[in-house]
């Protein structure tokens, strides 16, 4: 195929604006007469709350303080609507939004935050997903803490292990991490010339934001307009709604432009995290290193809210075998609520966590069988026509062997094996 | 934070005048790399800031023959770029080079490092090893304090609210003496030291220690001399065995000093690497001098 443009190193279309500092991010937008907004967030991980904003409202320069009472429909979420725009009765994590202060300057908003009185009636929290799975643990949501369970049942697992020459079993653990994109969340809202509520924000998915904001405000979608500015990195951390609804609510009520800028510290508690996972893996292979069976349990801590928990733990479950053909597979993958920061999408979406387990399992198996790490992969890895643990046939474009060969070519992995002999 | 007055001053006299007037309500700012963060986090809430970064007198490094005098307002970059700290004073050069990042080194000052007094301050262990004296000025005149004493006995020697740190001076080491430094950080830049060790060393012709001073950072409430190690090594020949012993001595001191701290188990093993690096680099330099 002769290609003129595809395959060429075209200069990025946004490069010029970015090297000159002309590219605008939400924090770079200034509108005459705009007010500022700041969010009051929970300081407790699990508590019933009562909020008193009266003293704060008296401050000169404070325009309005929004709470749950001001939100027409107070629930949102990418899959399950289990987030509240502002918590009404209960907070489930440190950082849950409780109120949104709009004032003439950032400084007066900060003062107001200190004057809002939140009475916390603290509840026992649960921070370990294993404990959270116990029926007697405190419930983060009414529905119970096990939010999702994904299963694979393929082949005959007992038979697989029975025929295995080597079996290795280990439990691996990965931690919650942050996207740490360089641009903290920010946004500006105003009413456009057609009377639409317009929000300029850095987001991964403007149409989803529009849908969510419209639902929360109980307005038709065409009354909402999202304008994506330049986005200072995302990596999954800008999928859930953060300040969009706050900004929309403020401009809808007050009819003046409003701007919000999060500090780095607020950014850390405002957006989702990568799911921490506990992965218990049992892998069996025959004498030649051919994989025969895998049994895996994955427990993902989705924190206080579901966000993408179902999809992340599903994707983790599908990929825990690694890119290897295994005839007998049992996988149980759970998403569990706790009072930790909520976990959602982050680069790799559950698939970044599972190789911490399956790739170490492969090396451990190889060692038990006296094989080298390259060979054991070569004989098990997916190729064209391979069938995955979910029964899917990989019909085309499976150049895994080539990938591994190219890596090994320059690194001399076999050499050590020879030395050892 | 709400500041009521800010002063960008040109002379030490002006500073001490203002300090006398505002006392605990005033804070000195030079590079700002620590203090602006403290203001932002409301760790401090002064009413007045006095910027000393334009006082020329505080910004010079003087080679006074027997002594070197560093103005409190000298930046880390200036020390790194000075030819004075290249040979047997390169422990100080290295410590300053490992501070934060280029931007932090361009603004951060040696005086600020001392006045802030963080246990992890990179430049202090080398300065303690050199037996540095600091000069503090107030409306009532000047006084000198040994840097080591300054931290050890804050009640008697620490900075008063009307005082300004003016300079640091130390005796230039003779050619057969060397200052070295090692730092353990979690990453290669923008790293706060988990452990730092500075060593000041003199060996005789047989390789026996005739003078040694060892100072540590992040191994206590403030940077300090490691006297037990010094005592152990003084008069001994430096070899694998004695250095191994010296490591045990440091570990014993740490066990007492850091008892119950969660960081102790790691630090007591990692200190080995820092002490080896610091002493080893010192020996290597002196071998070069003798060769």
């Amino acid at each position, binding site marked *: 195929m002769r*290609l003129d443009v595809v395959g060429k190193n075209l200069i990025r279309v946004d490069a010029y604006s970015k090297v000159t500092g002309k590219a605008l991010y939400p924090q770079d937008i200034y509108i005459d007469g705009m007010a500022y907004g700041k969010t009051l967030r929970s300081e407790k991980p699990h508590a019933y709350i009562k909020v008193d904003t009266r003293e704060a409202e008296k401050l000169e320069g404070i325009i309005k303080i929004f709470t749950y009472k001001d939100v027409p429909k107070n629930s949102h979420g990418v899959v399950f609507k289990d987030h509240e725009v502002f918590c009404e009765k209960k907070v489930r994590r440190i950082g849950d939004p409780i109120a949104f202060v709009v004032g003439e300057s950032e400084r007066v908003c900060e003062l107001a935050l200190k004057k809002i009185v939140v009475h916390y009636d603290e509840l026992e*929290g649960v921070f370990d997903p294993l404990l959270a799975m116990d029926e007697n643990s405190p419930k983060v949501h009414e529905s119970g803490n096990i939010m999702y369970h994904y299963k694979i049942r393929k082949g005959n697992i007992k038979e697989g292990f029975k025929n295995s020459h080597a079996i290795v079993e280990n*439990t691996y653990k990965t931690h919650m991490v942050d996207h*740490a994109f360089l641009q903290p969340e920010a946004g500006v809202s105003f009413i456009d010339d057609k009377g639409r509520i317009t929000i300029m924000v850095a987001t991964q998915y403007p149409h989803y934001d529009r849908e969510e904001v419209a639902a929360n405000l109980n307005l038709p979608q065409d009354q909402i307009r999202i304008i994506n500015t330049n986005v200072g*990195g995302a990596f999954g951390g800008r999928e859930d709604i953060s300040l969009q609804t706050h900004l929309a609510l403020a401009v809808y009520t007050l009819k003046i432009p409003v701007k919000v800028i999060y500090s780095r510290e607020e950014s*850390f508690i405002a957006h989702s995290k990568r799911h921490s996972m506990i992965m218990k893996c049992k892998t069996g292979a025959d004498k030649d290193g051919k994989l025969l069976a895998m049994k895996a349990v994955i427990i993902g801590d989705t924190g206080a809210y579901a966000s993408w928990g179902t999809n992340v733990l599903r994707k983790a479950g599908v990929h825990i075998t690694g890119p290897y053909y295994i005839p007998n597979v049992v996988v149980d993958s759970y998403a569990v609520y706790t*009072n930790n920061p909520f976990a959602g999408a982050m680069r790799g979406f559950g*698939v970044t966590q599972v190789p911490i387990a399956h790739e170490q399992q492969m090396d451990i198996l190889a060692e038990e069988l006296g094989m080298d790490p390259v060979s054991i992969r070569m004989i098990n890895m997916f190729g064209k026509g391979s069938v995955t643990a979910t029964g899917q046939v990989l019909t085309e474009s499976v150049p895994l062997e080539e990938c591994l060969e190219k890596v090994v070519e320059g690194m001399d992995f076999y050499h050590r094996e020879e030395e050892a002999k | 934070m709400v500041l009521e007055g800010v002063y960008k001053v040109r002379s030490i006299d002006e500073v001490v005048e203002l300090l006398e007037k505002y006392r605990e309500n005033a804070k000195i700012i030079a590079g700002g790399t620590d203090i602006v963060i403290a203001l932002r986090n409301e760790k401090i809430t002064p009413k007045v800031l006095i910027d000393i970064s334009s006082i020329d007198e505080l910004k010079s490094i003087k080679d006074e023959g027997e002594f070197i005098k560093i103005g409190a307002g000298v930046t880390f970059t200036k020390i790194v770029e000075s030819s004075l700290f290249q040979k047997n004073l390169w422990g100080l050069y290295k410590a300053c080079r490992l501070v934060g990042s280029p931007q932090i080194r361009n603004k951060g000052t040696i005086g600020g490092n001392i006045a802030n007094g963080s246990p992890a301050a990179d430049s202090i262990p080398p300065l303690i090893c050199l037996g540095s004296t600091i000069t503090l000025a107030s409306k009532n005149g000047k006084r000198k304090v040994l840097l080591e004493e300054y931290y050890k006995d804050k009640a008697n020697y620490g900075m008063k609210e009307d005082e300004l740190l003016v300079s640091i001076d130390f005796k230039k080491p003779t050619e057969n003496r060397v200052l070295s430094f090692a730092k353990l950080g979690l990453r290669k830049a923008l790293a706060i030291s988990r452990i730092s060790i500075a060593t000041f060393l003199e060996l005789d012709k047989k390789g026996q220690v005739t003078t040694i001073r060892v100072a540590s950072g992040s191994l206590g409430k403030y940077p300090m001399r490691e006297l037990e190690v010094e005592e152990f090594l003084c008069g001994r020949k430096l070899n694998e065995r004695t250095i191994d012993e010296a490591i045990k001595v440091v570990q014993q001191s740490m066990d007492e000093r850091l008892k119950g701290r969660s960081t102790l188990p*790691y630090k007591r093993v990692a200190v080995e690497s820092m002490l080896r690096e610091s002493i080893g680099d010192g020996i290597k330099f002196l071998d070069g001098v003798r060769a």
Partner: protein
Amino acid sequence: MKKRGKGIGISFYGTGYGNGFPDVSKAKLRLHDNGKIGIYVGATEVGQGAKTALLQIGAEILNLSTENLLFISEDTSLMPDSGTAAASRQTYNTGNAIKIACENFKDKLIEISKEELGLNSTHGLMVEKGEIYLEFFLQKRISFKELVNKYGDGTIEAEGEFIAQTVEMDPETGQGAPYWPYTFNACGVELEVDTLTGRVEILNVRFAQDVGRAVNPRLVEGQMDGGFAMALGYALFEDLNLVKGQIKSNKFSRYLIPTAMDMIDVEKILIEDPEPTAPYGAKGIGEPVMIPVAPAILNAIYDATGVRILELPVTPERLRKAMDTKKNEGNFNMELNALKR
């Protein structure tokens, strides 16, 4: 003492929302006043290069240079929904939607040109460099500008929609075809462990990434470097330090991501094996480039030290402790009463 080791990680990654959920991308094309073509698509540029790569796909089909294309992807009042900039799906999904929209647009231009040029059939009409012409009688030609002058700004338009093919999995057995396409890669890492401090230094990296086809190789390389750096932080540095739900490391002075000095030059190898259902064979690689790195680092640490670190991150403390006790660090018993029900 310094000990060296090598390790490999390989991975696969299924693109898209998956599991039978309709993964839809839409694109719209319009002919504008200056003869330029506007591509209207809700694909967010988050830094990955979506605007550039998707524009390249459009330009290729329309036989135009990218300067003659406009890319409108910011304003929900202007562009159709192309799904989220996530799941490594924009190049594949929205790339396909743009491809379909461009083909429909070309058909439309040809249909209109047939009328304008007074031809009996569309046979032999070509679209290239801003013109429609009859390939065997070049005098029969009409430019985009002429068309827009006659029909008006934005009135000639076409749409395209692409829906990825996935099959919902059975809730009891997990059997189904949850994602498509899958992307593959392999990473090899050589590193050195300071056995006294437990610090890890990466010495050498080879990283091969299946891309289907690289729409813009330099953008792919940028993703690979960035993915490696993020995974390096994941494996060795980054820790929120959660205590009872509170993030203790909530600032950059405590939450440590790699600096330029912690990063290393990465030997990047792009493997091209075009995916038939993808635009020009191109697959998404934004997420895959992070995935095989951390396990390669962990396997290399084992190779160097003989200890397995089963829990992330591999802080110097954790590694040093493992070396001291000669025990695999983090191998906890998982007593799951909850699971026994």
